[in-house]
């Protein structure tokens, strides 16, 4: 665990920005955390080709730092949605999804109020062309454009997703799809 006031990263293989409600979602979700001292080091890590995963608020922080394209805005129904969610693996050529078949349906919980992915016209086409859409919602719960639940950077080394893979790692909890994602990471190192 690295404190947000740190300015350097130790030697790491992967940076994970977890979910939560940094700074109470003040201003915009992830906006103030994106200006934390440690985020300069995270941005440098991205620029030298480091692997990064942002989950939920972590995804929001990655878009606010412009490491990932787009923005996360409030769900269209203005409600906090907490439920298991079917997702489609739209790109299985990333280090986080390589253990899945292309277009496979997996189940991972979502828990967010600001999960509607937004990107304007030309940029969304560019994202599609670059195979930047990693996960899509089967039944879009929040109004995300193109049903987007997760995206990756151009170099495919940074992934951001609203669903919580760490909450789907045990059969007793309903799904092990999240475990498969972390296993993908291990098999790529």
């Amino acid at each position: 665990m690295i404190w947000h006031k740190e300015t350097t990263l130790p030697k790491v293989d992967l940076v994970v920005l977890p979910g939560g409600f940094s700074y109470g979602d003040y201003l915009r979700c992830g906006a103030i955390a994106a200006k934390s001292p440690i985020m300069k080091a995270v941005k440098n890590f991205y620029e030298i080709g480091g692997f990064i995963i942002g989950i939920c608020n972590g995804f929001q922080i990655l878009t606010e730092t412009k490491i990932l394209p787009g923005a996360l805005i409030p769900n269209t129904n203005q409600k906090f949605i907490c439920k298991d969610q079917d997702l489609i693996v739209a790109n299985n050529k990333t280090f986080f999804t390589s253990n899945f078949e292309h277009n496979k349906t997996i189940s991972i919980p979502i828990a967010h109020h600001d999960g509607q992915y937004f990107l304007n016209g030309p940029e969304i086409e560019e994202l599609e062309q670059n195979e930047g859409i990693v996960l899509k919602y089967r039944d879009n719960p929040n109004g995300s454009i193109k049903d987007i639940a997760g995206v990756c950077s151009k170099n495919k080394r940074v992934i951001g997703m609203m669903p919580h893979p760490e909450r789907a790692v045990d059969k007793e909890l309903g799904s092990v799809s999240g475990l498969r994602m972390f296993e993908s990471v291990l098999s790529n190192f």
Partner: protein
Amino acid sequence: MTLNEKVFKFKVEVILKKGVLDPQGEAIKQSININNLGNILDVKQGKLFELTASSKNREQAIKEVERICADLLTNSVIEEFTYYEVSE
């Protein structure tokens, strides 16, 4: 604040860009119409910030306000801003 600095006050308005869904604005519009408060075609909800700056001159203060707006107060993917100086 140092001796040669002055105080400048600004208001900053942030609003969603055209094409970004505004469910809060939509809900407010519906409430206006349901309650027969007026004939309103569209409502957009935004944010208002008051910034009190301490700068050596107005030009410097404006430069700082613009940087704050672009770097922090707005996300250019979804929002745009306007600002204006106000008296104390």
